C-alpha cells in the first residue's frame, strides 16, 4: 500500500519505467492493456501525467463512486469505521507494542511526505528536464548543422553560374590588347609619313629663308660699296646742317 503513496507523491517522474503504470492506478482505469498479443506497440503512448485520484492517500476514488448510488456520501467512511471497530473489538487485529511504533512511523512518514513531497518531486523533475533539454539541444544543433551545410551547397551551386565571368574578363583583356596594338601601329605609320613630309617642307622653308638673307646682305654690301667718298662727305655736311636747324627749332619752342 505504500506504493500508492510513493506513486501519487512523485507523479510525473521516470517515464521510462514501463511497469509503473502496470502496478499503479491503472488497475481500475483499465485504459491500456499491457502484455497482450503483439509485443510491439511502438511508439508507446505516453504515460498519464498524474495517477488515479485517491482518498486518504490509500483508497481509490472509484471505490467511493462505486458505493455512492447505494450508500451516499458517507457510505464508504461508515464501512471503514465499522470494519476497523470490528477488527479491534473482535481482536482480529491485536494491539501490541508494534501498533505504537506503526502509528508513530506512519505518522512521521505522512508528515514528511506531505511537507517535502512536492519539492522533492520538483527537484527530480528538474533533473529529468535537464537531461531532456540536453538531448534536445544536441538534436537542434545537428539539425542546424545539416541545414547550414545544405545552404552552403546551394550557395556554391549559385556561384557556379557565375564562373563564366572569369573567362569573359580574360577574353576581353586579350581582345583589348590586340585592338590597342593595332591602333598603335596605325598611329605610328601616320606619324612617320607625316614626319617625312614635314621634314621636306621645313627644309624647303629654311633654304628659302637662307637665300633671302643672303641676297639682302649682298645687296646691302653692294650699295654701301657704291657710295663714293665725295658723296659721303656731302651727305654728312647736309646731315649736320639739318641737325643744327632742328636744334634751333627745339630751343625756340620751350621759350614760347
Amino acid at each position, binding site marked *: 500500500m505504500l506504493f500508492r503513496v510513493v506513486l501519487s507523491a512523485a507523479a510525473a517522474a521516470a517515464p521510462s519505467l514501463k511497469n509503473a503504470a502496470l502496478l499503479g492506478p491503472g488497475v481500475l482505469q483499465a485504459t491500456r492493456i499491457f502484455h497482450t498479443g503483439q509485443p510491439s506497440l511502438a511508439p508507446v503512448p505516453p504515460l498519464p501525467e498524474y495517477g488515479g485520484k485517491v482518498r486518504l492517500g490509500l483508497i481509490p476514488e472509484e471505490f467511493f463512486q462505486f458505493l455512492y448510488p447505494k450508500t451516499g456520501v458517507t457510505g464508504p467512511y461508515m464501512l471503514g469505521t465499522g470494519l476497523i471497530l470490528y477488527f479491534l473489538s473482535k481482536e482480529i487485529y491485536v494491539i501490541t507494542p508494534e501498533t505504537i511504533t506503526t502509528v508513530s512511523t506512519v505518522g512521521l512518514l505522512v508528515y514528511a511526505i506531505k511537507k517535502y513531497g512536492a519539492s522533492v518531486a520538483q527537484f527530480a523533475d528538474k533533473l529529468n528536464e535537464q537531461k531532456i533539454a540536453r538531448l534536445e539541444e544536441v538534436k537542434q544543433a545537428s539539425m542546424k548543422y545539416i541545414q547550414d*551545410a545544405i545552404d552552403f551547397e546551394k550557395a556554391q551551386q549559385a556561384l557556379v553560374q557565375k564562373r563564366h*565571368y572569369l573567362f569573359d574578363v580574360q577574353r576581353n583583356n586579350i581582345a583589348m590588347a590586340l585592338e590597342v596594338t593595332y591602333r598603335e601601329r596605325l598611329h605610328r605609320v601616320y606619324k612617320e609619313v607625316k614626319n617625312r*613630309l614635314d621634314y621636306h617642307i621645313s627644309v624647303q622653308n629654311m633654304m628659302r629663308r637662307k637665300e633671302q638673307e643672303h641676297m639682302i646682305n649682298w645687296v646691302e654690301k653692294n650699295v654701301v660699296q657704291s657710295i663714293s667718298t665725295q658723296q659721303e662727305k656731302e651727305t654728312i655736311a647736309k646731315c649736320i646742317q639739318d641737325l643744327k636747324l632742328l636744334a634751333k627749332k627745339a630751343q625756340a619752342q620751350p621759350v614760347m
Partner: protein
Amino acid sequence: MAGRKLALKTIDWVAFGEIIPRNQKTIANSLKSWNEILTSRLATLPEAPPAIDWAYYKANVAKAGLVDDFEKKFNALKIPVPEDKFTALVDAEEKDDVKSCAEFLSLSKTRIEEYERQLEKLRNIIPFDQMTIDDLNEAFPETKLDNTKYPYWPHQPIESL
C-alpha cells in the same frame, strides 16, 4: 586601316570577386588592373589616325614626284591585324571548367540529398520525453551500450562518461 568593331562583354565585377577563392585573390586583382589599364589606353587612342592633307603637301613640296609617291605607297599599305593566338586557349580552359563545374554540381546534389535524408530522420523522431532507452538507441545508434564488449557496468570505457 578601318577600325573594327570591338565586341566586349560587360563584366559584373561583384560576381567576378565572389567566385575567386581566397588564395588566388592577387591574380584576380592583377587581371582586374590589366583590364583597367587596357580600357584606359583604348579610350585615349582614337579609332583611326587623322587623315593626311595630301593637297597641301602636293602644293608646297618642291620635289616633283615625292608627294605622289608617298601618297601611293601610303594608300597601298595594309597594316596587319595582330593575330589572336590566345582566345583559343581561354576557350579550351573554359570548356574544362564547365565540365568540372558540372561534376561538382552533381556531387553537390548527391550531398544535398544525403543531408536532406538525415534532416528528415532527425525531424521524425518522437519527442524525447516519450522515448525509452531502446527508442533512443534506435534514433541515435551511437548511444547503444555494447554489452558484449564491456560486460560490466557502465558498459562503456570509463573515460567517456
